[in-house]
């Protein structure tokens, strides 16, 4: 109907209202204002259901089912872990694209760009912290999603292939997270990735392993080419691959429906397409409100964790010439590092993970038990929990706690002032380190609580290794603090001892500490946040008051 007839029939106001309603309906792909109001008031839809229109007409909702079974909308059934994984991928994409603005993947610039991001870009640190936290959360949530599906037996027919693609998505998530690990180009990144890629070298025969390694690193060792390759993997190849498999996975989820609680569904039943009318929960508006509010709460949680608690690490710039003590893989690969400590590189680094992966993907095809009920699949559940426990033990073995012990003298200094990270010395900082010579075989009474704590820790570390190592007798630790420059102190750690056969040993390690350095990895930075807020507020309100 033309505008003029419309005005003639309904008057000006009526015509404007009709036009507005029309626009509203177009924007919502089929829901008019009256229907929207009825939704908000909780009234049931009419027949035929006008709330199905956005699913058939709109792109965004066409991938969503129009209704779910009432039982799967319970939070405690799915914990919304799949949704949350997808959402975290979107968060990572947005923060990642923003971070790309200030990053160039070359060894000359990558690390400098990190520092510029932290020092010169408003919200730069926030973006980086959030991207890092989101990545680690995504690994955790995807894993938990898998655990949930395993424990509820959701991989059973007809959802075997859904599980299979899910395992692929987990692997991609791990690689996506790991490929991002190298990009800051610090010691942590460089050595974790060097260890990670060196496992590829163990693939037999040697020529294949070397070629795979060469392809990943772009050279025998990680350098400019390796960084570029990991960058492209991280920002282009893996995300695209993940998006592709996500849609395969999600198509299967919609196609077969989310599995009902075990006692409501027989294996092989097609629940998604046969939901009794009285059990249907429509996407509009109930599930949409549910998902939106859930994701809003999760976003707020992610922001609060980022702002107040989480700090993405940044160690010294990558140095191929010096391997830091106690190099670790990212936490989600601790298990692999643990395995590498007890078995050879081929078995632990290639064979076992490969077998585990194939087994994981093959679970739906190996498990012939037709029941999804917990009491019928005790073996599967016990095996699953057992496998989880083994993973945790392997992970613990992957940490420096297990089977990595340098010489006692090295470990003592590493304990109080490590090469990377902070340690108590840097935690208490410049102002709590009085100049002088401090020996573990003498008693001091300094009016500085923090420094006394450091001396105490130094003392007890020396004492611990004296008792633990028969080759480390009558040890003396000497800490000499001198003023190297204005605002720069030099800390010289010296340990002397006698070996079992009476030979004298000596170890020296020197560090410098600047007054302005903030080693916040375990200390301070996030505590200082409220101080920065107060300072910023003071200058802002001052600027506003003083025009």
């Amino acid at each position, binding site marked *: 109907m033309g505008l003029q007839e419309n005005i003639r029939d309904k008057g000006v106001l009526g015509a404007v209202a009709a036009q507005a309603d029309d626009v509203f309906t177009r924007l919502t792909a089929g829901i008019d204002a009256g229907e929207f109001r009825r939704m908000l008031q909780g009234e049931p839809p009419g027949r035929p259901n006008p709330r199905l229109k956005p699913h058939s007409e709109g792109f965004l909702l066409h991938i969503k089912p129009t209704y779910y079974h009432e039982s799967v909308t319970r939070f405690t059934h799915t914990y919304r872990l799949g949704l949350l994984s997808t959402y975290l991928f979107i968060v990572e994409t947005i923060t990642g694209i923003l971070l790309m603005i200030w990053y160039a993947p070359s060894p000359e610039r990558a690390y400098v760009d990190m520092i510029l991001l932290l020092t010169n870009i408003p919200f730069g640190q*926030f973006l980086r912290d959030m991207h890092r936290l989101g990545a680690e959360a995504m690994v955790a949530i995807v894993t938990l999603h898998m655990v949930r599906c395993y424990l509820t037996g959701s991989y059973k027919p007809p959802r075997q292939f859904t599980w299979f693609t899910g395992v692929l998505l987990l692997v991609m998530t791990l690689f996506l997270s790991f490929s991002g690990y190298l990009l800051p180009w610090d010691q942590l990144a460089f050595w974790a990735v060097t260890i990670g890629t060196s496992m590829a070298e163990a693939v037999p025969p040697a020529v294949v392993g070397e070629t795979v390694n060469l392809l990943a690193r772009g050279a025998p060792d990680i350098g400019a080419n390796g960084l570029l390759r990991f960058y492209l993997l991280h920002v282009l190849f893996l995300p695209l691959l993940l998006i592709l498999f996500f849609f395969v996975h999600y198509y299967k989820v919609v196609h077969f429906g989310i599995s009902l609680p075990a006692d409501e569904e027989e294996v092989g039943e097609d629940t998604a397409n046969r939901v009794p009318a009285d059990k249907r929960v429509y996407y509009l508006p109930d599930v949409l409100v*549910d998902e939106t509010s859930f994701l809003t709460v999760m976003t707020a949680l992610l922001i609060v964790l980022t702002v107040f608690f989480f700090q993405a690490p940044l160690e010294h710039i990558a140095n191929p010439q010096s391997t830091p003590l106690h190099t670790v893989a990212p936490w989600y690969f601790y298990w692999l590092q643990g395995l590498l400590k007890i078995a050879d590189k081929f078995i632990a680094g290639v064979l076992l993970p490969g077998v585990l992966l194939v087994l994981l993907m093959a679970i739906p095809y190996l498990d012939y038990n037709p029941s999804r009920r917990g009491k019928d699949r005790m073996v599967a559940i016990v095996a699953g929990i057992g496998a989880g426990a083994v993973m945790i033990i392997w992970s613990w073995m992957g940490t420096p706690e297990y089977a990595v012990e340098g010489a006692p003298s090295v470990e003592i200094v590493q304990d109080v002032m490590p090469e990377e990270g902070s340690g108590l010395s840097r935690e208490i900082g410049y102002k709590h380190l009085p100049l002088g010579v401090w020996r573990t075989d003498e008693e001091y009474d300094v009016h500085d609580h923090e420094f006394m704590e450091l001396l105490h820790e130094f003392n007890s570390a020396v004492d611990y290794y004296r008792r633990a190592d028969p080759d480390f007798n009558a040890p003396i630790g000497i800490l000499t603090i001198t003023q190297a420059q204005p605002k720069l102190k030099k800390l010289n750690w010296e340990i002397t001892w006698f070996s079992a056969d009476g030979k004298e040993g000596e170890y020296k390690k020197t560090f410098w500490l*600047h007054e302005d*350095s903030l080693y916040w990895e375990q200390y301070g930075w996030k505590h200082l946040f409220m101080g*920065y807020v107060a300072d910023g507020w003071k200058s802002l309100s001052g600027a506003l008051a003083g025009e």
Partner: protein
Amino acid sequence: MHRLYTRSPIAKIMWGILSSLVGIIALLMVLVSENPRMEAQTINWEGRSIENGAKLFSDNCVICHGPDGKGILGRGPGLNSYYFFTDTGRLKDVGWVGSLEDYVKLTIAAGRPSKTESQWPEVMPTWGGQFGGPLRGDQVVDLTKFVMNWEGSALAQTPDEDPFQPFEDVIRPTEFQNTAYILLSEEEQAAALEEYRARNIRSPQEIWTGEACFACHNLEERQVDVYGQNGPNMADLYERAGSRVEGMTAEEYVYESIVNPAAYLVETYEQAGKMPQNFAEKLSEDEIQALVAWLLNPDREQ
């Protein structure tokens, strides 16, 4: 079973609104804190850079420049030095117009490989990777920041404390490459220099070779230039000088050409500024007079 999640859409919407508020407040707090945070981060990374530089200095530089940067006598110059950190000191002596930080960075990165006859037992090596040295660019920056961090202690030095060891290859006599001299007023400096020159008068021959006049001016063969057109031939100067400028004697003309080389340029040698402009400062009045007389003497001794 306890429901973690409520089914009421109103409660869900309230949760959504509440957490939006929490998120927005947290982001606003970040917004407010950004300026102080970025300042703290800036000095933090400067501090860490200095720490890295300290390690590099202690590993590579102390053998010549000393553990406290005060140099080692006869081995390497002091850097933790008033003379080194003042514009009128080292920078003026080497004629560097940029900042001291750039000068330090360049010297570390490039070294001084061109000096085959250094006064030191070893020349400053090339450290920067871009010139074939062992250090990466960021390490050169760290080292530079560390050296620059001596500024506070260096500028607090009294002339007696300044450990600077003079360079033999700069314009200012080595006697005046020290803090005591640069702390004098300009008049006092000029007087001291004049007094020094009166004590150390060089012969014209010494000046001719010492100031490298021979590199551009041919004094032996008539009409022959040194290396193309560098500077006018001077073997026949005594014949031409008197008639070059009207109203000027030969002596006046040569004197003027030494202290102010751009005043009268010889045809086909018209590239003003090629000849150093500072001989008036480098030579005493007596030395210039003797040089003029020597140049105009047809029977001069080479």
